[in-house]
């Protein structure tokens, strides 16, 4: 028959404290490991999300991976389907705006707004790459003044946002 006792062993509390410390220690090690993972990943992969004006004005951004956003000038879109290369131009939009669709439209109407040539290599041409789309690009501005993008994200707010008072509806109703 095994030995049983109703009493706690004399060193019960010390044992429990020791066990607790071990768990806290292990927890801290895990926490530090996760923190190290996050910090090293962030240091390696972080890139600024800046405007076209900023990337053109500051030479220190040349050759560095950055993220930029601009309005797509539809007439400049070219696709070399043999070599799978997309070329187009974007126009600078401000970093803050109330209405994206309006900001894109206004930027493309402004002849003084800064323009940037974009090249995306080895890519299928996205359906959303259209005039007045917002292009969000990750890549590097080369010494040739062309932005070489490795990632292209597009938004077409004017096409899908809820309509604001379409003027066509104001024509006098037939039964009025």
């Amino acid at each position, binding site marked *: 028959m095994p030995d049983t006792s109703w009493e706690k062993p004399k060193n019960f509390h010390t044992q*429990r404290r020791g*066990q*607790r410390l*071990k*768990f806290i220690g*292990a*927890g801290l090690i*895990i926490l530090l490991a*996760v923190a190290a*993972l*996050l910090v090293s*990943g*962030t240091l*390696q*992969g*972080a*890139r*600024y*999300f*800046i405007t076209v004006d900023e990337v053109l004005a500051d030479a220190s951004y040349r050759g560095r991976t950055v*993220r930029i*956003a601009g309005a797509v000038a539809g007439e400049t879109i070219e*696709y070399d*389907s*043999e070599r*799978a290369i997309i070329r187009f131009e974007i126009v600078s939009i401000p970093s803050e705006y109330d209405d*994206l669709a309006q900001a894109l439209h206004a930027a493309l109407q402004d002849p003084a707004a800064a323009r940037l040539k974009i090249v995306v290599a*080895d890519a*299928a*041409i*996205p*359906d*959303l790459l*259209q005039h007045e789309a917002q292009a*969000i690009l*990750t890549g590097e501005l080369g010494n040739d003044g062309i932005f070489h993008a490795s*990632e292209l*994200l*597009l*938004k*077409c*707010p004017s*096409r*899908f*946002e*809820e*309509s604001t*008072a*379409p*003027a*066509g*509806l*104001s*024509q*006098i*109703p*037939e*039964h*009025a």
Partner: protein
Amino acid sequence: MAAEIGLASLTLAFISAIYATIASLLGGFRGEYSWQLSGRNAALLTFPLLLLATACLVGALLGEQYQLSYVYDVSDPQTPPLYRFTALWGAQKGSLLFWALLMSAFTFGAIALNWRAERRLMPYAIATMMATLAFFLGLSLLLENPFERWWVLPEMPAGEQVISSALIPPGAVPPAEANLRAGAQGLNPLLRHFGMVIHPPMLYLGFVGFTIPFAFAMAALAAGDLSSGWIKATRRWTLIAWIFLSIGLILGGRWAYDVLGWGGYWGWDPVENAAFLPWLVGTAFLHSVMIQEKRGMLKLWNIVLVITSFSAVMFGTFATRSGVIDSVHSFARSEVGFPMLAFWLVMTLIALAATLRRWQQGALRDEHQFASFLSRESLFVLNNVVFMALFIAIFWGSFGLPIVSELILGKEVTIGAETFEFYVVPLFIAMYLLMGIAPLSAWGASSARRLGAALRAPLAATAAIVLLLILLGTDPLVALLGYGIALFAGAVAITEILRGARARRQTLGESPLRAVCALFQRNQRRYGGYIVHLGVTVIGIGVIGSTVFQTEVQHTLTRGDTVAVREYGLRFDDFFRAQAVDGRMMNISAVTVLRDGREIARLRPRIDDYPQMPMTIAGAHSTLENDFYVLLIKGDGARATFRIYINPLVNLVWWGGILLVLGTAIAAYPKITPAPRAQKREELAYDDTR
């Protein structure tokens, strides 16, 4: 008429939800049953009211009532009936109403199932659910009203004559029907896909579902009853929420794969990540909840997890709908951003403050201490740490870093997909290893020796398969390691099922099939969980195969030409234009897929010309081994350019998803055990005394 009835129902539902919140709180804090009952009835009423409101909007969509600005925005006379119906969740206004309908349906279900058993908690739970519902209904009524209509004000100057209003402005006349029909926008072509038909409702069901455990946790905190009662009441709700969220995520991936045309299914887009975050916390909770049930431990942690999952749901909803985040999903930009952010903050702070108060009172003290590193509870805690680390890493990369950098540096800093992969790969490896080891350890304490013995069979099975893969010429090493780790987790699940069945056969003499069935019947949660683990294993193998071994090429072919891509060939046969029933023109290429010179499939990748944009529709030949996925880039009768992807094992991602859902359904399926008569009598007697 539909607009008027819908608006009235929506308003009444809003008033009912506010009343239910106040009455339930009064009933709960004062202990007055009449208030509790009144609050409950008002909460129940929201469901039929919102059902009516939703029916009105669906009626207006199907009946082409373009005077409703929502109908005008999301459909046009060419929209087929199915997409007219699914346009209910095609944009902000409709989807908010749909969200509210689901919330009221879940509240209805929670009251029907839990009112008797959890009488003490229910008033507070109802108050929480109704406060959430009232908030969403408020948004719907005041900011994003789906029953707004176009009106023309002939007296106003040109340019200000057309307004959208829920109520009829004085002197207003409706616009001409012909103008409405001519101007209607039509549904975003990107959303015309079966994945998009089901993906949003599934995601919403998941999101809304997580409100129920949160409501019960808040109730437990308010009532001061922090035993495991609230957990037992909500465990199944959590599983239901988790199942829907899982389906939503899988279908979202499938939609991206089929529609976005980049040969992938997960792009670490902030909005995708926002839906993944509550899933991660929910998964952690589903594991740690077992420790509280079995050992009375992690009470504080479980409350924090439930609050975090709800908080993540609210944050995800904000992220998806506010449009403040640059994402492919940001077609729902609107004014609801700030109120949602405020609601998220207020609810999270209230919940955390209530938890802190109860913790200080000592109501969340654990009944046992951790005894051994290798006990099941310790390994489950480690699993929770991994899930929370994934949560923190993904949240940091998607939202934390951009926000913090903007605040400190004045410039936004972001990270790309490769950094997300850097974060998550080691954490997923830890997750798969724990998925294998934890189920083999024992509650309380487990020795390394015992655990080692239990690991022998699954490790041997894994080693045998990896060896076979090496002999078949699989490389690189990283893929083999990945396969090995994923297979190990699956091997543990299979060996555990087989071990259980063998034990039954030996003791009860059952046939193998009967033994397996009985095993699942007797312990649905455990064995349903193993099926989920198997599903995750299959998904892991699919992800490794389709990322490490993907081939992507682009070729221009003249008609009749064939190009070789790995063991396949693609022949360009024909090109023609055709008109679809909804009027859009389709540019269709006819191609033949060959393998070892044999024709194995004929595909028709095409480009559809929608008024808003062209839409590339891929052609795919799918087998378990590979997906041969072709996009038509451009073409005419003589030449066409194709982008070709070969995605090995990608279909395992979807099949694994099905297994995962099946396993969760087994775990969540209610056990039908007739209540003993005495217990029933007792319940009735309790009812009569109130």
